[in-house]
């Protein structure tokens, strides 16, 4: 698989500032733990923990893919897929935390939890609550930089995120090449404070450095929302009209809104998106989207649940694993018109059967902080 970009992430050196911050937390974090949870040594394992996935909503195809992975993992254990507990936060950090606590109370902490905490600040209380109850948690996406699994012994099993900056830069390069290296582009982003939204915009900016003749006309958050993206795009068309020669979107759902806005105007300019949803992959195949980036949510959903589950059963001991196995990047696969059909056949039409115990095989190296 040529597009399987395994090692495009440049390992940067930990900046001095972050190193200091991290070690400072190491001290206060230990103090905090005394307050909030059992000490790591006492972590008990559970024979048959409840497996739960906590995520944003069911209206976004991305989360559906995540869930399908979680369900596939549960089925691989010989259970019915109904055995997976769903906690949906509807975009509310408050509900996210409350549901987790309710689950911990209900199962007396015998829980293997996979979660996206909706907002980075929410990650700490969630992890603390799970650790205090003696459960096991693996997180994805949202986490503040000062929070690390290894500060919680075994209970905070792992954190996986996707380094979006590089893939977003790659899609940007594809876009910029397609418009011939000159003209203007606009960016429609996600919810402005979300980490992926920030990284994906940064990727575009990085790429632009090499294209002095291309101007970033405007960047506005479209909150991951198709309808909002649609309206913002039509306003962009009014403001910049023919100056827009390409559109960089922070995810597929934004891309759909942009495509429809262009369609209403009878315009046809190149766009690139992110996430690699089936619908977007089809559009890539048709050539209406130049590129999207597949983050393999199915695998991510399965392996995150698997990590928490196997740590909870004691199959492996997280605290004995190196840091690169506790905080790591998920896989990213570029999807372009040339390989879209291949890709679709391999990943979407026949979902591969993954070895859920190969936790780190497809992953992409330890998370680096700037």
């Amino acid at each position: 698989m040529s597009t399987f970009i395994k090692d495009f992430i440049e390992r940067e050196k930990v900046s001095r500032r972050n190193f200091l911050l991290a070690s400072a937390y190491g001290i206060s974090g230990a103090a905090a733990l005394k307050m909030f949870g059992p000490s790591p040594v006492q972590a008990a394992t559970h024979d048959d923990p409840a497996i739960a996935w906590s995520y944003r909503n069911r209206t976004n195809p991305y989360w559906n893919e995540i869930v399908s992975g979680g369900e596939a993992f549960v089925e691989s254990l010989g259970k019915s897929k109904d055995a997976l507990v769903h906690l949906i936060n509807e975009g509310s950090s408050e509900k996210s935390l409350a549901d987790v606590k309710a689950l911990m109370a209900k199962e007396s902490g015998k829980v293997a939890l996979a979660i996206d905490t909706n907002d980075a600040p929410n990650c700490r209380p969630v992890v603390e609550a799970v650790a205090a109850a003696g459960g096991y948690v693996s997180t994805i996406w949202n986490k503040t930089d000062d929070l690390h699994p290894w500060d919680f012994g075994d209970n905070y099993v792992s954190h996986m995120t996707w380094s979006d900056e590089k893939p977003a830069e790659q899609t940007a390069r594809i876009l910029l090449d397609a418009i011939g290296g000159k003209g203007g582009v606009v960016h429609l982003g996600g919810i402005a404070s979300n980490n992926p939204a920030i990284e994906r915009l940064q990727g575009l900016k990085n790429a632009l450095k090499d294209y002095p003749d291309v101007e970033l006309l405007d960047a506005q958050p479209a909150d991951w929302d198709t309808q909002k993206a649609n309206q913002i795009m039509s306003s962009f068309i009014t403001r910049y009209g023919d100056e827009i020669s390409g559109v960089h979107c922070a995810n597929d759902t934004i891309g759909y809104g942009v495509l429809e806005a262009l369609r209403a105007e009878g315009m046809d300019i190149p766009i690139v998106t992110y996430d690699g949803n089936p619908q977007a992959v089809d559009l890539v195949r048709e050539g209406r989207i130049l590129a999207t980036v597949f983050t393999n949510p199915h695998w991510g959903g399965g392996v995150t649940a698997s990590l928490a589950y196997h740590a909870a059963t004691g199959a492996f001991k997280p605290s004995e694993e190196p840091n690169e196995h506790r905080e790591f990047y998920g896989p990213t696969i570029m999807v372009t018109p040339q390989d879209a059909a291949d890709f679709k056949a391999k990943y979407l039409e026949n979902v591969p059967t993954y070895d859920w115990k190969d936790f780190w095989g497809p992953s992409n190296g330890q998370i680096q902080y700037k």
Partner: protein
Amino acid sequence: MNNWLTRDNLIRWAPLLVLLALICLFALIEPRFFSVRNAARIAIASTPALMVAIGVTFIIIMGSIDLSMEGTVSVCAVIFAFAFIALGGTLASFAWLALPLALLVGAAVGLLNGLIHVRFKIPSFMCSLAIGFVGTGFALLLTGGDRVRVEDELFRSLLTIRFLNFPIMVYVALACLVLAWFIQSHTKLGRNFYAIGGGEELATSSGLNVGRVRALAFMLAGMFYAIGALLAVGRIGIAETATGNNFMFVSITAVVVGGTALWGGIGGVWNTLVGVLIVNVINNGMVVIGLPNFVQDAVLGILVITAVVLSTNRKTVAFVK
């Protein structure tokens, strides 16, 4: 005839004046705002919201409120899309039956809302809020979270085919607006909304079956939400649980900004048209003139308050809540 410039007249026309002032303001800052193409863009963005706002206008005229629109729109959109695809996937086949089906679904949800409100005497605010949750939940149950694409070129011609620079969906919306105006001013039901808004107890003692009128009003509103749902699907070609998102506050804000009073009895669908345009002109204009994202919300908020202040006749209102 030189006394048309009275205070009362000014207040009555204030929403329209606000709209014109906003257009002039944005056009002055960014001349490209003032173009037929952009007018069409604003019109496209406005149509689904206009339909939803018209629906809730009837309810607000009665002095009630309806917060169920987000759920209703989602349910209608999703059922429409499923039926449309199941029946052939193009308007040229029996799939056109999905259009009346969506209207029926809207009417059914609205009627359910109205009946619970009337029969169990639950204030409309609470009842419709809960029905909204049920609606969104039901849409989610149906889709399981997936989005349904409606790709039929014929159906999408709502957006893609233009006539005098405006896509067909804008004319559909205008036709519905005229229909709504007709219901409002030339039918018994429409006039009864005003009677209830003007004095519910008096209307009851005049022999009006207020409960029935209320239930019908919610049903009618539901049908307009369904039209809104169809246009929303027509605009982006996707039906999903999130299709109804954001309609609640936008539509009610638009109704109030247009000069229809929340306490009932005053206003109408033309006011709502102006209100929807004000809100969408602001949204479009702020991006067009390049206002930084983080101030856009505040500007919208302040302009909304200003518009309401200008169109309220403080002499005739004792107090507001």
